[in-house]
């Protein structure tokens, strides 16, 4: 059947048809939908794990146990899962193991722009890179076959534009592979030094075998056209942009297996064209390989290292460097322009977001805030501007411990860590253990909105529901913090500003470690009923703009008076607590 599918849906469909039995992942844009879609298939055991390391170990365990398994994550998640990744390369698999990692060139929803291909090179693992949904589907299916044939985990490299683009896919039926019974094999699966030492040469031989495959695999194809003045090597979205710009007549070596890379195929292609150009987003991984073969090629001297590519960018670069009139090149149209600047529209905390009240409290008390990864990172935006650092999952709590130990650091006297419920489960809890164990006195705020918000509402160990929305084990955050050794644990409602203020002041002043759990479910959850919208009495409003300090998108100044947008307001009432003139009232007509 022909269907228009998101790249991530297509990966899930391919995995499903290839007989995947177990999927364990941690959500992360742009990878999340793969596992969400797998969870809709009754035959697949799927779960959200607390973090990517756990997820990959679950998937590896299932693979050793003899079932085709899957683990998905975003690029920075692979940093967390790197530990099992490198050794899984040595053990190899029982049944097939596929790992999807989604890069985010252009950083649409990420804190860095790392290129995951380096992991495939470093861990010596085969990596497939699809360039549209049809390839997502085919490559995902094929990845299991490859995994079992070469006894290796296989990485499927996605990127935002492939993961979140829809194109046409021809789907089929699920075919269950023969069951691979578990076989005890200490030499294969127990990676103590003696065994690992014997394994390493096998990994190197596997790479040589995979290079042989790369030479002849239909995933890598030299598409020689009429234009031979230039020959382009590309994979993933870059291939699509190149075809768009250079047309059908161009000569392109399209790579689907991006690690290990072929040698002879590249040499033959280089010999058939005048100038070899590698077009790749982010780092010069293919270019470095081509140059290591002693071939002349161009690449990052023409194309940027930073940001994602577009067809115009590629057309402009080729136009600048083109030496020939024989090769077709799409033209870049002139652009319409407005004379005046257009105000930016950055993402904001939603109206009624439970994080807002707590960030207002932190701003008011001039607290230094070590932040973390989630919706609440938006607390760094004006007018709240109350986050000082954001590094990676969990870094708020551990970073705060270090920050308080930086000698002569006066800001440490009035500093807290801020972390969400899901991120705390992911890797915040270890930082809190460190504080308790090493006698710190830091204050940690867990912003518990009862969901993983930024990635689009995934359940986590604190919500009491599993990936399918069924009842599940529920971590008691208060009990967990106490068990770690934190005596001062209190819960506040972030819609109550006085309560937040009191808690923040008291806990920062305390000379022992403390945890404030700021608890209220995300205002966008379907289970949360919005209250009637509030409105401003133009008579009572003195235009003092106190209500504007919380940066609520529903409040603006209209004709000199504060006004509330009734289509956005959910009646949280935080603004009413800021108005000295009781001008914000009642139900909006």
């Amino acid at each position: 059947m022909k269907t228009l599918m998101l790249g991530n849906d297509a990966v899930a469909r391919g995995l499903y048809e290839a007989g995947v039995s177990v999927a364990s992942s941690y959500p992360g844009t742009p990878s999340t939908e793969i596992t969400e879609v797998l969870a809709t298939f009754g035959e697949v055991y799927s779960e959200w794990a607390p973090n990517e390391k756990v997820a990959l170990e679950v998937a590896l365990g299932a693979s050793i146990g003899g079932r085709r398994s899957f683990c998905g994550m975003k690029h920075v998640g692979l940093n967390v899962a790197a530990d099992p990744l490198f050794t899984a390369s040595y053990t190899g698999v029982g049944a097939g193991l596929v790992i999807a990692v989604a890069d985010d060139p252009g950083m649409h929803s990420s804190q860095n722009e790392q290129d995951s291909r380096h992991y495939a090179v470093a861990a010596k693992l085969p990596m497939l890179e699809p360039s549209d949904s049809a390839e997502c589907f085919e490559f995902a299916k094929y990845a299991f076959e490859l995994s079992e044939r070469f006894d290796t985990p296989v990485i499927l490299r996605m990127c935002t534009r492939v993961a979140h683009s829809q194109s046409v896919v021809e789907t089929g039926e699920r075919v269950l592979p023969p069951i691979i019974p578990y076989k005890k094999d200490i030499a294969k699966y127990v990676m103590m030094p003696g065994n690992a030492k014997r394994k390493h040469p096998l990994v190197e031989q596997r790479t040589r075998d995979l290079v042989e495959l790369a030479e002849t695999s239909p995933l890598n194809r030299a598409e020689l056209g009429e234009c031979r003045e230039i020959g382009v090597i590309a994979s993933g979205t870059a291939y699509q942009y190149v075809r768009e710009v250079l047309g059908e007549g161009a000569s392109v070596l399209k790579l689907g297996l991006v690690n290990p890379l072929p040698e002879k195929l590249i040499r033959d292609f280089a010999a058939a064209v005048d100038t070899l150009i590698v077009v790749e987003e982010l780092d010069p991984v293919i270019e470095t390989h081509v140059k290591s073969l002693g071939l002349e090629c161009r690449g990052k001297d023409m194309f940027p290292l930073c940001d994602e590519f577009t067809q115009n960018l590629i057309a402009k670069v080729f136009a600048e460097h083109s030496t020939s009139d024989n090769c077709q090149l799409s033209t870049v149209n002139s652009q319409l322009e407005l004379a005046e600047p257009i105000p930016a529209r950055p993402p904001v905390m939603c109206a009624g977001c439970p994080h807002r009240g707590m960030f207002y409290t932190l701003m008011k008390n001039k607290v230094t805030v070590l932040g973390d990864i989630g919706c609440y990172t938006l607390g760094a935006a004006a007018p709240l501007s109350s986050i000082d650092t954001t590094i990676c999952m969990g870094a708020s709590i551990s970073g705060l411990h270090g920050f308080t130990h930086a000698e002569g650091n006066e800001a440490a006297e009035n500093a807290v860590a801020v972390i969400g419920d899901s991120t705390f489960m992911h890797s915040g809890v270890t930082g809190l253990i460190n504080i308790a164990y090493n006698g710190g006195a830091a204050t940690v705020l867990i912003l518990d909105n009862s969901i993983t918000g930024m990635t689009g509402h995934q359940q986590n160990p604190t919500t009491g529901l599993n990936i399918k929305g069924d009842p599940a084990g529920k971590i008691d955050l208060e009990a967990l913090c106490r068990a770690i050794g934190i005596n001062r644990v209190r819960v506040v409602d972030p819609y109550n500003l006085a309560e937040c203020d009191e808690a923040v002041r008291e806990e920062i002043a305390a000379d022992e470690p403390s945890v404030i759990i700021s608890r209220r479910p995300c205002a966008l959850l379907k289970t949360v009923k919005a209250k009637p919208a509030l409105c401003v009495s133009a008579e009572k409003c003195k235009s003092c703009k106190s209500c504007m300090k919380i940066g609520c998108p529903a409040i603006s100044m209209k004709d000199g008076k504060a006004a509330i947008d009734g289509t956005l307001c959910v009646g949280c009432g935080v603004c009413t607590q800021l108005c000295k003139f009781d001008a914000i009232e009642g139900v909006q007509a």
Partner: protein
Amino acid sequence: MSETKNIMIVGVGGQGSLLASRLLGNLLMNGGYDVKVSEVHGMSQRGGSVVTYVRYGDKVYSPLVDEGQADYILSFELLEAARWLSYLKPGGRIITNTQKVDPMPVITGATEYPADLEAKMTAAGAEVDAFDALALATEAGSSKAVNIVLMGRFSKYLDIADDEWQKALEQTVPARFLELNKTAFELGKK
């Protein structure tokens, strides 16, 4: 080979551009075209400026629409139409809701919402069809149906039979909202 056509759907995160792009995707795929639709998820959805690309033709390569390429820009909000103006092809058409949603720099008073954007976009060379889609959506029964009102208006510019649109609506919109959205579509078309 026919040229690839480019549509952009722009608006403020949360306004329903994903459903609109999926409706167009289904409509065009049913029509036998190769189709690519590119969406934005995650951080950018939180009340920020969002853009979705829909491309169709005999063979579509890039999933993106770039500056100077859009045949149509469908906009949920006036400022967003203006923001993406440079993506319009010379002679391209903007179909926009006249609703104004203040962005944070306007809310905080750091800057003002630009005035007379319709006239300015027209002066810059765009064909502009601006109308109050929010009022029509509300009339249909929900302010959230702006996306389908816009689709109704857009249907006037595409050479695609009405029953094809109805089929795509049935494919894309959840059953319980179908009647409301069909009404919204008809109101937009008028």
